[in-house]
């Protein structure tokens, strides 16, 4: 019998190793799996390479992981926000490496890893400092930049509903990077707010098929906190 339901976040993350590359879903706080990040902090893995769109908001979630000094390098598109003080401090002190990636390249490099594509050419970033030193080629009359896939040891993502085969649906824009990160990691751990019986998810509406998910952790629903912007 296949049963990917984990009885706790701690159990789901017990085997994360020092030095691991960890993809973490989320765009700001939407889709950020806070409970898995808290469990990762407790688990103690260090020297992590984290892949996320941002670099933490406030003092919880990804910001707390950074603040705990567990992250050696972050690969992201938009680290600087009004409430990214943990990242800002580490960066200014030279205690974290930053690989800044245009957001579309980030999504596509992750997707490429999941699809078995080693690298691809894209016009994004051509002629900018973010393409410096990268191979370029003219394709269809347009200059393009070679970008490599980003693989991960673990992906931590937040979904809405799931079943024991690992099929997932998401909620609104909390979906964001979840589906592509699930494809790109050797082990994908997803939180869900509801575990349902096989067959209860509409097969036409499953967003992430279970083959991309190894562990499903049920978590009680809490309202997502707003962050990352200046209140009016």
């Amino acid at each position, binding site marked *: 019998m296949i049963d990917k339901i984990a009885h706790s976040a701690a159990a789901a993350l017990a085997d994360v190793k020092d030095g691991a590359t960890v993809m973490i879903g989320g*765009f700001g706080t939407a889709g950020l799996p806070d409970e898995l990040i808290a469990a990762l902090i407790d688990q103690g893995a260090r020297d992590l390479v984290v892949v996320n769109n941002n670099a933490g908001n406030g003092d919880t979630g990804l910001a707390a992981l950074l603040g705990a000094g567990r992250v050696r390098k972050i690969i992201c598109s938009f*680290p600087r926000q009004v409430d990214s003080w943990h990242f800002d401090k580490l960066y200014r002190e030279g205690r974290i490496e930053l690989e*800044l*990636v*245009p957001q579309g390249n980030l*999504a596509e490099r992750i997707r490429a890893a999941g699809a078995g594509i080693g690298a691809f050419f894209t016009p994004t970033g051509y002629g900018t400092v*973010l393409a410096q030193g990268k191979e370029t080629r003219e394709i269809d009359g347009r200059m393009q930049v070679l970008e490599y896939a980003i693989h991960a040891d673990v992906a931590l993502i937040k979904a809405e509903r799931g079943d024991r085969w690992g099929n997932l649906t998401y909620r609104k824009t909390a*979906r964001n990077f979840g589906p592509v990160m699930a494809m790109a990691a050797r082990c994908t751990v997803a939180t869900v707010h509801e575990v349902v019986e096989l067959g209860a998810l509409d097969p036409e509406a499953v967003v992430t098929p279970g083959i991309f998910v190894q562990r499903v952790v049920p978590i009680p629903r809490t309202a997502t906190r*707003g962050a990352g912007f200046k209140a009016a």
Partner: protein
Amino acid sequence: MDALPRWTRDQMAARVARDIPDGSVVNLGIGLPTLIANHLPEGREVILQSENGILGMGPAPAAGQEDYDLTNAGKQPVTLLPGGAYFHHADSFAMMRGGHLDICVLGAFQVSARGDLANWHTGAHDAIPAVGGAMDLAIGAKRTFVMMEHLTKAGQSKLVETCTYPLTGLACVSRVYTDLAVIDVGPRGAVVVDIVDGLEWDALQAVTAVALARA
């Protein structure tokens, strides 16, 4: 500062909105361009895309109705219009990078007469760089507009011969909307298509760092 006649931010937004055809799919960048959504003329159906996975983005929710699983690119709460859809990040950026968006409107630090864009980084030594979706949007949409103040706070022209800030994209902007004028940029250089009421040509040219041509 000078006492030039100027469009207000809302007048600028309304001027951009006038140029967005019925049926367009549009991405409005963070900052000034977000104002455009408030000025789309009645009866014109325009679908707004948000990089974090929305087509058919609606206005901000009423106070107390905020759902932070439904936010815009600036992470502020928004709503979904009937007919709207959610999708993941690779699909969202495929919409941009694959040339499916009709128009994107971005803010800018500098735009060159040939349409180079600098809008993500001042290059200041102590600044923490952040690029987000700017480079994908700039080169991916069928048309890229810029909406920006004509001058910096220090009175420098933001329309320049060559961008001195780090580039976002090369030759990607087709039209610039400022508080003084609407100016096409590209292979033919800077061509003025509209000018704020009461502003003389010579006065516009005097505060603009590139040679302007008449449409």
